[in-house]
């Protein structure tokens, strides 16, 4: 069923899905931590908007609560906490020189194509156009992992982890019109606790190896010395 026959709301959802995919792409290319956190905040806000839109399209009331939850949690609270952390850790000035941004970008596009290829059988399942947003959500998840693999900064890892959570939440909202309420709350609670723990860990890592560079964490290796 072509995009043209869709109602405006569904078209809006597709647009927002594309925007979310764009934000995870942008995150791949960022070298400054502060901007990375900012883009993550934008992604959170976009996600909450899509949840709100989906709520009134499918008129399921509990989606409004989860939209609000996502906005407050992933849109505002976590980005601010990360920002304050980066600033008082003094990391906002140093620039992480990405080794080969071009290759990472190409890998990102390859991932996008791959996840679409994988989700093909799902999409053909039913005429619902919104289904191919599942491919987008899988792409966001895989891009989040790629971000964690390519960056050396611990904060970047946290942001990558959170963007994976966003991708999952997006998939839940889009494909199944929201998980049951109990599960929503549970996931939100877990993400919150994870964020708090990340903060705690930054101080521990800082005190143990006085830098947040992940590659220096390799005392526990068994390779033949």
């Amino acid at each position, binding site marked *: 069923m072509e995009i043209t026959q869709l109602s405006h709301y569904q078209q809006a959802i597709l647009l927002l899905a594309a925007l979310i995919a764009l934000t995870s792409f942008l995150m791949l290319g960022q070298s400054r931590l502060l901007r990375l956190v900012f883009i993550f905040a934008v992604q959170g806000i976009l996600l909450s908007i899509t949840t709100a839109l989906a709520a009134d399209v499918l008129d399921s009331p509990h989606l409004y609560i989860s939209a609000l939850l996502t906005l407050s949690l992933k849109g505002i609270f976590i980005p601010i906490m990360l920002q304050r952390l980066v600033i008082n850790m003094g990391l906002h000035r140093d620039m992480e020189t990405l080794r080969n941004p071009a290759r990472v970008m190409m890998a990102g596009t390859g991932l996008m194509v*791959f996840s679409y*290829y*994988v989700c*093909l*059988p799902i999409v053909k399942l039913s005429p619902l156009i919104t289904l191919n947003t599942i491919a987008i959500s899988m792409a966001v998840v*895989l891009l989040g*992992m*790629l971000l*964690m*693999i*390519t960056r*050396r900064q611990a904060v970047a*890892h946290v942001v990558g982890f959170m963007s994976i959570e966003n991708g999952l939440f997006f998939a839940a909202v889009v494909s199944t019109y929201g998980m049951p309420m109990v599960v929503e709350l549970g996931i939100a609670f877990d993400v919150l606790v994870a964020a708090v723990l990340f903060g705690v860990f930054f101080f521990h890592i800082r005190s143990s190896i006085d830098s947040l560079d*992940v*590659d220096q*964490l*390799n*005392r*526990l*290796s*068994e*390779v*033949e010395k």
Partner: protein
Amino acid sequence: MSLFFAYLSVVAALVSGLAALATDKRSELDRLATSLLRRWPKLHARAQCVFSATHYAEYHRNSLFILLGVSGVSAVLASAMALFSGSVVTDTLPFGLPWLHWHIRFDALSAFFYLIIGLVLVAVSLFGPGYVREFEHGKHSLSVLGFFTGLFVAGMELVLLADDAFFFVIAWELMSVSSYFLVAFQHEQASNRRAAFLYLLMAVIGAISIILAYGVLAGFSGGLTFDQFRSVKLTPVWASVAFVLALIGFGMKAGLVPFHAWLPEAHPAAPSHISALMSGVMLKVAVYGFIRFTFDLLDEVYWQWGLVALLLGTASAVLGILYAMQQQNLKRLLAYSSVENIGIIFIALGLALIFFSSGQARLGTLGIIAALMHCLNHALFKSLLFLGAGAILHNTHEQSLENMGGLIHRMPKLSGIFLIGCLSISALPPFNGFVSEWLIFQTALQTGNLDSGVIRSLIPTASAVLALTSALAAGCFVNVYGVAFLGLPRSKHVASCHEVSHQGMLVGPAFLAVFCVLFGVFPTPLIETLNVVTGQLVGSTLPQVSALGWLWVSPVAKEVASYSPFLVLLGILVTVSACYQVFYLRSGRLESRRADTWDCGFGGLNARMQYTSTGFVMPFRRIFQPVFDIDERIEEQKSGPDGFHTQRLRYHLHVSDISWGYVYQPVARSVLGLSRWVSRIQTGNIRTYLAYSFFTLLILLWGIS
């Protein structure tokens, strides 16, 4: 009824094990006894003296070995009843998996091996108390030794009773684990620890291949009990796979050549009475497992199997005795000679397999009977020799032949018994070793009836090697007896030692020696009982055995071959007494005069001028040189300005087993190399770990779409 005694022997062994745990619990037992027996004053006093500090150790030690003795006696009774009645008793115990309880089966074959366990156990229980006193004030508590001995004996007996794969392997590995703890009993020496580790490693690999062999049968029969295995028909390919796995599994435990390296390490490490049990009985339980698998569970045998068993047996026999000769440590020598005797047993089994596969049922039965008889004989004289070695170790604290000598004057009774052991193991006529070896030769001599020319030419060569082995065995044990017991003592300890004080340490080996002579002189009754075993196992017997009366043995037929050990013994005794009469009594009773030995006039003969055991076996080392891994060097320490005169000459000789170089080290190196290569994936960098999980996901997704 026979099953009752079988259970009694297992329970007695377990109780002796548990009783051993009470070695250092004297005070609690004392309090318990006094409180319980308050009302009967007589018993009360008795308990007082039993649990008193001085006597407790003695009573406790004796009670352990009395329980083992009870287990041995009831084992002998059980086997006697089962063999004479020829009945098969089956039962199930409420242990094991919910749908597969432990199945028990006590038939003639298990009964025969029960007889072996029983006899050796009685001897060990007589020998034990005297020998174990030495360990009391040692570092290792007696409770560990007693507990695991009880478990070890119970494990062996349960293996013989098992009638389903699950219970068999449980009992099998119970036997291996408990003997591991016994080998590692004196674990302060690093060599004992290494021996124990190698022993358990080989036991594990052996057990797994046995499980897989049963797995093949279970795969096709759907169940795990031996009755289901017996009814299943296997294709030749699968039957051969099962046979090879069983040969590897049981061969590894029995000590066939490629897998024998653990045996000479483990047996000397264990206390002597345990090495007697291990060498005499545990190896036979492995042979029992092999016989049960090939002749009972597999319905059809092929001649290729027989050939493999024959070749492995011959290799084990000749290599075993060649390595035995090169050992200085007495217990290592006896362990290697066990490898030789196991080789001989597998030669007999190989012949039996070949004859069965070509339809000669009677000759096959002769082969099995020869193998079973050699199992019994070897159990008897090998335990006798190990107990003898233990007695020597107990009195002189010497294990190496280089420091022994002249023991015949200081320990006359023990040397007499040891001599009977040496004579039987060298397969000399009136003794039991000769009868089983003679039967094996008779089986080999019947190759005329086979059709394929190749086997007909291979079997004589194998039996020629067997003849070489028995001659080498005679040479080896002349060396052992000559160096250890005869001539002049080579060290202070040996010179000052005295006869074995504890009576039990003489009665035990003497008990075995009596049986060695008894089965040597009257083998026919034994072969008749073996007929019962083969009748149940393969359905055919040897009718002609006592054709010439019960004094004679004529395995195949009256005119083919016959041998009457009793008449041979009678002939020797008559001639000896005749010579004694004629040359001593009639010719003036000339007493022999004692004088100095002939020393070519130089004078001053001392112990160092005697032939040591290394010297004695030097010709064999030079002749069979490629078989050994010899490291022979002469270190010369020069002195003086330009190194003219030599300060000191040191001759260094070390003969080691080639199987270490060709079999064991390569395997160990490859495993360590592989693990070093694999450990590269644990790099320690979190981003590589994330990459692993990322690519696993991608590959799987790509795989399923």
